[in-house]
C-alpha cells in the first residue's frame, strides 16, 4: 500500500498554482473577470440606465390628437402637456394606430363625448416601448392636473369644501432604510454573480489540470513519480479550489468596493442619494459561504473534466454543469424568494438565498448554519468521488 505524504500534496499544489498564475487565460477568469464584471454590470449598466432614463425624460414626443372637435377646451388642455407635439388626425383612428405601430408617433389621445356631454379621453399607449409610456405619462399628468382643477372649481361653485372628496387620509411609511432600499435590487442580483464567479474561476484550471494534462501527456509522467494517486488528486484539487476561492474573494472585495463607493457615484449620476453599507462581519460570512461552495464546484469540475481526453472535450462536458449551477444560482432573482430551513439543504440555491439575506440584512442563523453544513457535506462527498474517479484506470487511460 502507498504511504500518504502531505508534503507531496503541498508540492503538487505549489506547482499547479505556479503553472496557473503564468497562464493568462486562468488569470483572466480568476482575477480580471471577477474584479471588473460586478462593477461593470452594476455601475456600468446602472449608469447607462440612468442616462437613458434622463434622455427619455428630456426627449420631445409626438402624440396624435383625435376627436379634438368633440371638446375643444379639453383638446387645448391636452396640448399644453410638456415637451409634446400633437398631430391632429381628426378621427382617423386607423391612421393613428398604424403610426404608433410604425413608431412614427409615441401614442394617441382620442376625445369623445357621450349623449349627456360627458367627455372620455382614451389614451393609446404601447407599453412595451419606454418612449410611448413616457410620452403618455406626460399627457396623463396634464389631464389629471386639469381634472383636479375642474373638480376644485365645481366644488367652489357648489360652496363645498375641497376636502369633501377626502374623507380619510392614507399615509404609507417606508420602514426600510435608504441602505436597505438600495440593497433590495442588488440583493437579488449579486448572489448570482458571486456564485457564477466562484464557478468560472475554477473551470479553466480544473480542465487544464486534468484533461489538459492527459492531452499533453504530462499526466503519465506524474503518475510514474513517487506521488500517489491520492496525493496527486488532492494537490490538484486544492489548487483548483484555491483559484475558485480567490475568484470568489476578489468578487466579494469588488462587490464591497462597488457598494461602498460605486453606489455613491452612481447616485450622484442619477441625482439621487444612494448609500449602502455592509458590515465587515457580514462580508466575512459571505466569504465563509463561498468556501464550501468553491470546494464543491472544484470537485464537480475535476470529476467531470478528468473523463475527457482533451480540453475541448472537457469544455463540452462542463456545459451542462454550467446550466445546473446557473439556474439554482438565479434563485435570488426570483421575486419573493426567501431562504428557509428546507431550501438550506438544496445545493447552490441555499447559498444564493443566504447571500441574498446577508445583503438584505435579514440573515437567519439557523439557515446559515444548515447551508454551511449541507454545502460542506456535499463538498466532502464531491471530493470523495473525485478521488475515486482518479483511481480508475479506464478513466485516466480511456481505451
Amino acid at each position, binding site marked *: 500500500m*502507498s504511504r500518504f505524504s502531505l508534503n507531496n500534496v503541498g*508540492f503538487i499544489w505549489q506547482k499547479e498554482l505556479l*503553472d496557473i498564475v*503564468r497562464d493568462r487565460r486562468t488569470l483572466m477568469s480568476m482575477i480580471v473577470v471577477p474584479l471588473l464584471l460586478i462593477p461593470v454590470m452594476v455601475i456600468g449598466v446602472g449608469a447607462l440606465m440612468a442616462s437613458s432614463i434622463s434622455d427619455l425624460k428630456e426627449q420631445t414626443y409626438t402624440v396624435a390628437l383625435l376627436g379634438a372637435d368633440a371638446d375643444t377646451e379639453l383638446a387645448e388642455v391636452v396640448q399644453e402637456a410638456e415637451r409634446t407635439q400633437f398631430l391632429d388626425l381628426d378621427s382617423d383612428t386607423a391612421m393613428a394606430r398604424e403610426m404608433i405601430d410604425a413608431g412614427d408617433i409615441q401614442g394617441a389621445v382620442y376625445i369623445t363625448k357621450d349623449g349627456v356631454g360627458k367627455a372620455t379621453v382614451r389614451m393609446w399607449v404601447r407599453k412595451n416601448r419606454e418612449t410611448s409610456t413616457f410620452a403618455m405619462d406626460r399627457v396623463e399628468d396634464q389631464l389629471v392636473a386639469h381634472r383636479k382643477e375642474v373638480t376644485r372649481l365645481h366644488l367652489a361653485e357648489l360652496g363645498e369644501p375641497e376636502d369633501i372628496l377626502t374623507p380619510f387620509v392614507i399615509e404609507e411609511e417606508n420602514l426600510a432604510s435608504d441602505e436597505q432600499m438600495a440593497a433590495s435590487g442588488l440583493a437579488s442580483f449579486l448572489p448570482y454573480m458571486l456564485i457564477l464567479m466562484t464557478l468560472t474561476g475554477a473551470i479553466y484550471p480544473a480542465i487544464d489540470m486534468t484533461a489538459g494534462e492527459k492531452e499533453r501527456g504530462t499526466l503519465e509522467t506524474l503518475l510514474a513519480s513517487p506521488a500517489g494517486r491520492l496525493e496527486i488528486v488532492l494537490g490538484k484539487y486544492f489548487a483548483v479550489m484555491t483559484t475558485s476561492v480567490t475568484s470568489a474573494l476578489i468578487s466579494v472585495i469588488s462587490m464591497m468596493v462597488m457598494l461602498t463607493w460605486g453606489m455613491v457615484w452612481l447616485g450622484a449620476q442619477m441625482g439621487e442619494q444612494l448609500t449602502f453599507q455592509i458590515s465587515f462581519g457580514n462580508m466575512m460570512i459571505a466569504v465563509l459561504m463561498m468556501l464550501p461552495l468553491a470546494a464543491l464546484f472544484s470537485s464537480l469540475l475535476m470529476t467531470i473534466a478528468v473523463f475527457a481526453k482533451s480540453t475541448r472535450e472537457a469544455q463540452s462536458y462542463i456545459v451542462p454543469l454550467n446550466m445546473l449551477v446557473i439556474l439554482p444560482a438565479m434563485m435570488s432573482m426570483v421575486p419573493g424568494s426567501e431562504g428557509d430551513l428546507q431550501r438550506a439543504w438544496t445545493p447552490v440555491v441555499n447559498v444564493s438565498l443566504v447571500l441574498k439575506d446577508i445583503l438584505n440584512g435579514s440573515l437567519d442563523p439557523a439557515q446559515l448554519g444548515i447551508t454551511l453544513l449541507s454545502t460542506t457535506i456535499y463538498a466532502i462527498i464531491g471530493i470523495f468521488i473525485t478521488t475515486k474517479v482518479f483511481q480508475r484506470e479506464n478513466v485516466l*487511460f480511456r481505451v
Partner: protein
Amino acid sequence: MSAILEAKNLGKVFEDKKRGEIHAVRDLSFQVNRGEIFGLLGTNGAGKTTTLRILATILQPSSGTATVAGYDVIQQPDRVRASIGYLTGDTNLYTRLTPRELLTYYARLFGMAKGDIATKIEELSERFELQEFLGTKIGKLSTGQRQRTSICRAIIQKPELMIFDEPTAGLDPISARHIVEFIRESRTAGRTVIFSTHYLREAEKLCDRIAIVHDGTLRAMGTLDELLAESGTSDLEDAFFHFIELDREAVAAVV
C-alpha cells in the same frame, strides 16, 4: 547477474464497450538483470506500452506479478516508483515552467533534500548542456532542449532502473540521438535500462538482450546472437519477421 526486474505471467485486459475485452498483455514473463540494456521489440499495439506502464505502476496487471528493485508493483507501488525513471517519446513537459522549476518539482516528489536538489540540477545541466536555458520557460525551448530536459527529469533521483517507452518515437533525428546516446552511455556506466521500440536498428545497436512481443505475448527472448541462431536468420529484421510469421502460422493452424 542479479535481476532488478522480474515479471511473471503478466496479463492485462481492458474493457471496451464496443470491442469487449481487449487482451493487451497475455502471460508475459521475463527478467531484466542489473546493468543490462533490455529491449522490448514489437509492432504498434503489441503490448509494449501496457507492459511498461504496469512495471511503472501506472496500470495494474489483471493477472500475474512483477517486482522492480525487489518491490512488488501491486503491494509497494510507491517504492517501485521511487526506484525508476520513466520517460516516453511523446511526453511533453509543463511549458509554463522553466527546466529548473520542473526538475526541482520532480526532485521534491522523489523526496530529495533541498541542498541535494540544487547540486543535482547543476550536475545534470552541465552534463546535458542545459545551463543557458535553465531559467527559460520550457515552451520557448527547442525540441532537442526539451528532450534533454526530459532525460534530466527521468534521472534526477538517480533511479535504479530506467523505463523508457518508445523514447525516440516521433522525434526528429537530432532529438532522438540525445536519447540513443544517453542509453548507450548508460550501458557504459553500468545503469539498467528497459526500453520499448519498434525500430529494429535501435534495438540491434543498443540492447544486451531483446524480447520480441506480439499480440501481447512474448515470442522470443535473448541476445541478438541467440535470436539469430533460434530463427536461423542473419539479421534482426529477418529474425523479427520470422517470429511474427511463426505466430501467424500458429493462429492459421488453429483456425
